[in-house]
């Protein structure tokens, strides 16, 4: 147990970061039935904005800027790339998402010059090293899961108890009927993207405080893992995404601990395929019936 502890702590922290991204995937999928491939890149852009702002501004300005810019980016992506395709086939929507992801990466590449950007001024205090039960870790590792859970509870409360939350639930149950019932579908979708991007920005700040280097491709891998977490937990379900993320984070670090790191990514994908084939609705997902 003593020997496993560092891996478990690290795994829970990784899980918390994936959870924050996974929520964005699962909410968007729940409503639009779209794998938002660009979500991981939004996460990466948040990291880049953090790199640029923290070097020139104090924290109490730079952090809000990161959050606002990321939210705006998420909103703009939806309006420009997804909204015009609302009546198009699902494949077009997904291609558009892949195109956006490609575009964001290439633009980021052009702006940064293609080199990874180190986070030179990480947020103080949270990036200090501390000891718990004899295992060393950064303070951010402990903060991440706690903050994740707090945000998730707030979000679930919002969805349960506000009008727009009700709209989201209605839209994810039945898109057309919700529209007929007077749900303002466009603002619901925009709100979904805003919340998703906000959480991704928070996740990004925590992630890049922990691993202080932002590369153009930094978003794609955590993004993919978070998506798998969302599928694993049952896509469309927020608690499912969170549980799935923690499980994936833990498994990944334990596999590294066992010395099979060559296959740490492969394992995640294998898990995905098994889940899809055995129980496509995931742990908490609802059964969907296809209509002709």
């Amino acid at each position, binding site marked *: 147990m003593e020997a496993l502890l560092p891996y478990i702590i690290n795994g829970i922290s990784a899980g918390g970061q994936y959870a924050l991204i996974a929520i964005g995937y699962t909410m968007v999928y729940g409503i639009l039935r779209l794998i938002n491939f660009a979500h991981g890149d939004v996460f990466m852009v948040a990291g880049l904005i953090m790199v640029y702002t923290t070097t020139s501004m104090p924290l109490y300005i730079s952090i809000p800027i990161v959050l606002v810019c990321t939210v705006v980016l998420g909103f703009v992506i939806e309006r420009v790339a997804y909204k015009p395709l609302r009546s198009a086939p699902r494949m077009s929507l997904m291609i558009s998402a892949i195109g956006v992801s490609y575009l964001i990466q290439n633009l980021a590449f052009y702006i940064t010059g293609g080199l990874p950007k180190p986070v030179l001024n990480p947020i103080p205090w949270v990036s200090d090293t501390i000891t718990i039960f004899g295992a060393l870790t950064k303070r951010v590792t402990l903060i991440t899961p706690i903050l994740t859970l707090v945000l998730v509870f707030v979000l679930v409360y919002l969805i349960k108890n506000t009008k727009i939350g009700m709209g989201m639930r209605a839209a994810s149950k039945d898109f057309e009927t919700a529209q007929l019932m007077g749900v303002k579908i466009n603002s619901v979708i925009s709100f979904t993207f805003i919340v998703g991007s906000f959480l991704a920005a928070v996740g990004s700040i925590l992630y890049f405080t922990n691993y202080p*280097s932002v590369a153009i491709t930094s978003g794609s891998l955590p993004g993919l893992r978070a998506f798998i977490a969302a599928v694993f937990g049952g896509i469309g379900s927020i608690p499912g995404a969170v549980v799935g993320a923690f499980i994936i984070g833990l498994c990944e670090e334990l596999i590294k601990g066992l010395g099979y790191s060559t296959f740490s990514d492969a394992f995640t994908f294998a898990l995905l395929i098994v889940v899809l084939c055995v129980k496509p609705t995931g742990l908490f997902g609802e059964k969907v019936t296809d209509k002709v």
Partner: protein
Amino acid sequence: MKKFFAFALVLVMVVALAVPAYAANPVVKIGVFEPQTGDNGAGGKQEILGMQYANSVQPTVEIAGVEYDVQLEIVDNRTNAENGPSAAAELVNRDVSVVLGSYGSGVSMAGGTVFQEAGVPAIGVTCTNPQVTSDCDVYFRICFLDPFQGTVHANYAVNEVGTMKAYTLAMLGSDYDQGLVYYFTQAFEALGGEVISEDFPEATSNFVSYINNAKAAGAGVIFAPVSTNYAQLIIEAASAQGYEGQLLGSDTWDNNMVVESSTGKDVEIKITTFYQEGGNPEFDEGIKAWMNANPDALTNNGGNDMVSAVTAMGYDAYFVALEAIKAAGDTDPAAVLEALPGVSYEGVSGLIEFDEIGDAKRDQAYIKTANTAEGVWEFVKVQGIG
């Protein structure tokens, strides 16, 4: 509309073809085959800086009594073997007399096949894999090789650090990392040590568990010949996890972003490299002044005027190329290729001569350590493998 779109595309292509590039003075072109993007982009850019500075110091060359302007033709190979052939072909297409580069052996080999077909000589600056030259007649190189570098590290770990257990960390899929780990392991085991090797998948950010594995195994050194981005993250993780052994890095670590990220961290880092700042004060001063006058160069160097070994090597490579062109007395690649093996040049990184395979005769490496208080490299010693 679609027709118009297609038509416009075709038009752009045709016009792009038709625009010729010409210069009034006689020009000799030196191709620069370097990554400016991708994992090795940072290193490639620093290597180019050395060549550009050399070009500003010595912009002309006298060939058979005629004064020629030297023009650098820089093409980005994107670190990736997939883009190697077309980038190399692009250089050949621009009629270069000789090619310099690349940082990263994999893409050098990919380009090498094209240079071989075209008969254009290439001078590897810091590509350390033996296969770059052994299987390609036109490839030469001015740096030491992986077997040498791996052995230096193994000797250092056993003799200076005094450990018999080493942990190696390499990126999955990177031949540079894996090659060095292979030679390190061989040398270290020959000395009676034990090696634990692990690979991490591309785009890994979280190295905490790997460091924990090294700690759990009781390894006295972590040998991680990885690219700069991962080096920074490994330093961060090692410091956060309170790793007490030493981090050993290869020539890729000799980069100011790496040393900066170690600032204020509690880690001990040793690296092998080709040149130590201060080895040639005249060169150091010159290039610092040049970089400071040139904001783009400063950005490409990572924001300050620290001189990386790869920059010094790029500088030397340029002059070796000029020597070869002079000796050939012709701008024709074939003539330069013939003249190259005979070149002997005293560069800032030491004497450069080639053996029969085309490798530099080098038998010592500089060992540097990171001064974590100030964030600069400090010279430790010169190490051979004798």
